[in-house]
């Protein structure tokens, strides 16, 4: 009887601890509440511009060797704690075969003059749909931002199989706290 009580207690404690850890590791909502001591802190980012970075009316059509299209995306810290860029993920719709024929480079731009940009990703758009862990260079404090430079192009070696294809991609940027490497 005594053993049964001990077993039940241990099982309950483990179940509660597991649930706590499970909830703590859930994907974040738009704002993530963090308790540091008695104070509640928020890990929260906004992206600027909120409009799509790439669209044909502005960029024209892609073709083998077409000009590279470069756009900047600002990741703004609107929370209370610093962050670091840690992951990219793209979700594609439409003729997603086109993602195999498009190359993408993502740079984290430096703050000061002469500061070298940090290469975060260089590969096909289709590889980005599998998600990519990256290591941002800057720890971005509260109220500051970091600029990401996205460049997309179709290599000269791309074949006719991509002609006329059209797709959309949502590009997700994930940041982490604590920002320490």
């Amino acid at each position, binding site marked *: 009887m005594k053993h049964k009580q001990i077993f039940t207690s241990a099982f309950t404690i483990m179940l509660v601890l597991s649930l706590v850890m499970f909830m703590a590791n859930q994907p*974040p909502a738009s704002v993530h509440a963090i308790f540091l001591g008695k104070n509640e802190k928020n890990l929260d980012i906004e992206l600027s511009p909120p409009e*799509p970075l790439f*669209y044909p009316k502005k960029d024209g059509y892609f*073709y083998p060797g077409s000009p590279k299209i470069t756009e900047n995306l600002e990741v703004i810290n609107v929370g209370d704690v610093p962050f670091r860029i840690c992951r990219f993920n793209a979700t594609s719709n439409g003729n997603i075969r086109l993602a195999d024929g498009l190359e993408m480079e993502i740079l984290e731009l430096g703050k000061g003059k002469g500061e070298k940009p940090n290469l975060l990703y260089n590969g096909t758009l289709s590889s980005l749909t599998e998600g990519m862990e990256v290591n941002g260079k800057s720890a971005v404090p509260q109220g500051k931002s970091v600029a990401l430079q996205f460049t997309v192009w179709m290599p000269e070696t791309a074949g006719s199989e991509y002609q006329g*294809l*059209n797709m959309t*991609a949502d590009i997700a*940027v994930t940041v*982490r706290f604590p920002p320490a490497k």
Partner: protein
Amino acid sequence: MKRTLTAIVLIGIVAMLAGAGTYSYFSDTGTSTGNTFTAGTLDLKVSHSSLGPWTDGVTGTWTLSNMKPGDETPTASVFFKNFGSLASSTTEITCSYTVTEETPQTEADTDPNTDEHPDEMAKHMMITMMFYKNDHVNINGLTGYDSYSGLTKDDWKINDANGDGKISLYELKLDPLINLPSPDTQPNKISQLDMRIKFDENAGNDFQGDAFDLTMIFTLKQ
């Protein structure tokens, strides 16, 4: 019982530590939505008239029925136009061909297997006139000379591979015309090819009864 409990508790602790090691930070995600990527198209269509109708292929442009050595087609033309979303810059012209042996075999046909080596017959199908033209160019494919600009280019000329002073369809296949200014490079967006073909006077009995099927291939390039 005590051992079982100890084991369960240990497994639980190890699992929690492993979990803590794997997920050691909090995260937040922002998404740039609706990014749209579109690849352009080149869509070459051809016609027997500059007024259309425009299709992906035309047939029977150069025809010689019951031909004999020395026979020549009249001048015939193919017009081409790009209906794609991208502008092209150059055109390439080449050809392919097949030979069909007659059935039953003619006794006088001294090569009953020309269909297995069609190049031999193509060497006797001579191009006697070939002009690629649009509003900006009038290029002689046999000399590479553009009478509008006064320029002569090797790319615009079929090389006389065997040096006999004649140009055959075999030589066009070997040495396509390349870098011709495409239909998109001038105002009316239409180019045309004028050509005449002659069955060589020196063609022998090897080709009696044989049918030569020519496919002209036009390609637009960016």
